[in-house]
């Protein structure tokens, strides 16, 4: 058992545990914090997989910006916990059994169809990772230039949409 594998196993255990915590905790604030933990572990996986830019984006955008927004809204609405109800009583057992089936099916499919028996090693620290980043930028701005620009428009639209939706209407104005 190599050290990489140990790191992987520990990290994956942490990620799964954080995910479970997010799903199962009663308080929404805890859920958010568990999710942040999960995002961070995943970011470390990205580093291990030789994707430092994505790892940084993960930390800044997901763990930073998005989750802060989530926490902000949770606190704004005071929606940390909801009163228990007993609608849809069969939802939970069905969901669990379907989840198990889904897990088995997806894992099987991904592994069998990808036909992977390759091993992934951690990136060589001695290699300058800036080359890697430059190459990725070249790909992004040449091959994927149009989707990139479209993404900017998407962000603009989302921004305008969010403002319009939450805008407080003045009295007597429609």
């Amino acid at each position, binding site marked *: 058992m190599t050290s990489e594998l140990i790191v992987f196993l520990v990290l994956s255990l942490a990620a799964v545990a954080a995910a479970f915590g997010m799903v199962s905790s009663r308080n929404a604030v805890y859920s958010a914090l568990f999710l942040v933990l999960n995002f961070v572990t995943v970011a470390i996986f990205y580093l291990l997989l030789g994707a430092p830019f994505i790892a940084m984006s993960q930390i800044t955008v997901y763990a930073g910006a998005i989750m802060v927004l989530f926490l902000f809204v949770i606190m704004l609405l005071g929606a940390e916990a909801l009163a228990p109800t007993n*609608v*849809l009583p069969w*939802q939970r057992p069905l*969901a669990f059994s*379907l989840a198990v*089936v*889904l897990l088995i*099916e997806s894992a*099987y*499919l991904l592994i069998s169809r990808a036909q992977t028996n390759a091993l992934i090693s951690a990136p060589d620290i001695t290699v300058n990772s800036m080359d890697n980043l430059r190459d990725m930028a070249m790909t992004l701005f040449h091959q994927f230039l149009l989707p990139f620009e479209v993404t900017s428009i998407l962000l603009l639209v989302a921004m305008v949409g969010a403002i319009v939706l939450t805008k407080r209407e003045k009295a007597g104005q429609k």
Partner: protein
Amino acid sequence: MHLSEAVNSGFFYLAPWLVFAPITGLLINLIFGKYFSEKMVGTVASLASGAAFVVSVLLAYSVSINHGEMMSVPFAQWIHIGTLQLDWTFRVDSLSATMMLVVSGVGTLIHIYAIGYMHEDVRFKKEEGRFTRFFIFLNLFIAAMMILVSGDSYMMLFVGWEGVGLCSFLLIGFWYEMDTLARPSWANSNAAKKAFITNRVGDFGFLIAGFLMFWYLGSFQFDEVFKAAPEIAHSAPWVIVAITLFMLVGVAGKSAQIPLYIWLPDAMAGPTPVSALIHAATMVTAGVYLVTRSAPIYSLVPEAQYIVAMVGAGTALFAATIAVGQYDIKKVLAYSTISQLGFMVAAVGMGAYVAGMFHLITHAFFKALLFLSAGSVILGMERGHHHLAHHVAHDDHGKGKKKEGKKEEHGHGHDEEHSEVFDPGDMRNMGGLRKTMPVTFWLYMIGTLALAGIFPFAGFWSKDEILLDASLHFTSVYGQLTLAAFLTAFYMGRQVWMVFFGKPRHDAAAHAEESPKVMTVPLMVLAALSVLGGALNLPFEGFHNLGHWLGHTLGEAEGLPLDLKVAGISTVLALSAITLSWFIYGRNPLKANQPDPLKKPLGFIFTGMENKWFVDEGYFAVIINPFKKASQFLADVIDWRFWHDFVHDTVIAGTYNWLSDTALNTYADQKGIDALANWLGDATQSVSATLRKVQNGFVRSYALSVMLGVVLILGYLIFK
């Protein structure tokens, strides 16, 4: 064509105007009549008829300067089928020109007379709007009659023949919703129908004759038929006999001969000018014209000629006996007309075509005169009657009402106060009119003398010529005709004594008034013609004008000299008949409500005369009632009960109902198609009611179903 040229060669090109002139008048009155005054309408119609007369005169002139040559005036292509080449061609020869002159001449005078007559008639009948209609019909009649006499083929003649039949029908039923006494009834319409249907029987004969003619002689055109006839007469004489006899049926219908004369007395339901024009002077002579026109065919078969002569003579005598027993002034004249038509038919049957035509012309003059005078008498009686009613109304309502609405007032007063209906045509109501209507009296006297055959009036010459011919060829015909002539003088004498002499038997007769000039002047013209008409064909060497004239068409006939024996016998008989009538009716004038003095001595014979020998009743018993019963049987039993009730209702409709109701509706539709459609609807409803519950509004449930879908798709991908 210039006039000078026309004067030299003839005006034949004007022939179509014989028909177009009255048609033009008809159209003007039809379209603009409602804006015209009565005088205007009458003037237009009279001018239209007068124009036809002028054309007739010009055509007659044209024939005479062409030495009687027949002239065909082609007008339009008509029927061209296979070998049949039938054109609308006007035939102008001395015979048709004579007929044209009589028709349009007498017709025009009657048009003028009718202006005055109808003016009053529509007011007595309280339907002033029909004035225009009358003249439209009258012009239509002239047009149809012109087609009849000017046609160049039997088909064209038939068109006119039917046209005048139609006009006769329309004019007999002119006051269709009343009877002759203006009471609400269908009597006049029934008279019109009787005339039309009786004529159908005759036309059936004419049509059969036409079919035979076409089949064996191959044409309808006069000249071609006449050319082909002798050959056929040689090889198959029965064909010609059949043609002539079937044609005789047509003649009997149109010219009111035995056995089809029955419609003519009823036709007196029409206004008097109609009786004069159509049912005395012109239309009824169409049969005589037809036989004369067909002379070349008739001459081939003496058997048929003999039958024609016997029918004519029999009719002449038979109708004369009925005329003796009639009380209605117009009915007497109607039977007299039938009788005189019998004279003409007998004449043409004997081959004495010139005599027949001669009598046709003079008869047109004096019978029109008599009828129109009778109309004048009737109107005079009406006037007297209304004068009387006026006095009654005057007495009842006081002086204040006198000035306003005279006629209506009087009419109503009459209707309410006298339950007994006054008949202005009944001779038993008349008497003494000599004094109140002097002009009409003298005119009537001239007509009577002409009809009775008194020297030197027109009737004497024409009748004498027929009698002379008969005495030479057919003794039995001569006997019948002489007896008929005696009766003619007798019933005319009876009529004159009853109408004009003695004392008024009704207040209306006492107050009768003379007719206006518009009526009497045409009568004077006719009276003059009745006096002088004999001059057309005097039985003296060099005076056979009509004989020569018609000879161009009919072949030159030997002009017979006056036979003093025949003329003497007939004159003596006529005078003695008049004297006899004076003894019976003139010496002791009839009192009011007194039965006819002939009733006692003649007994049942007079009852027979009075009731027209029960011929109508006989027809009813022998033909009409069985026919009605058969129709009733066919309608009620065969058509209604069997065909409608059983076959249609029970068999067809019942089967169809069973099929549609039980088989198709109940089983195929309701239990089959409907049930399927309903089941589909119910199934859809129940399925959707179940599925609806899935749509529970919980987002998480939807997410679960998405999840389920994902699982299933993945499972599919795995086990693919």
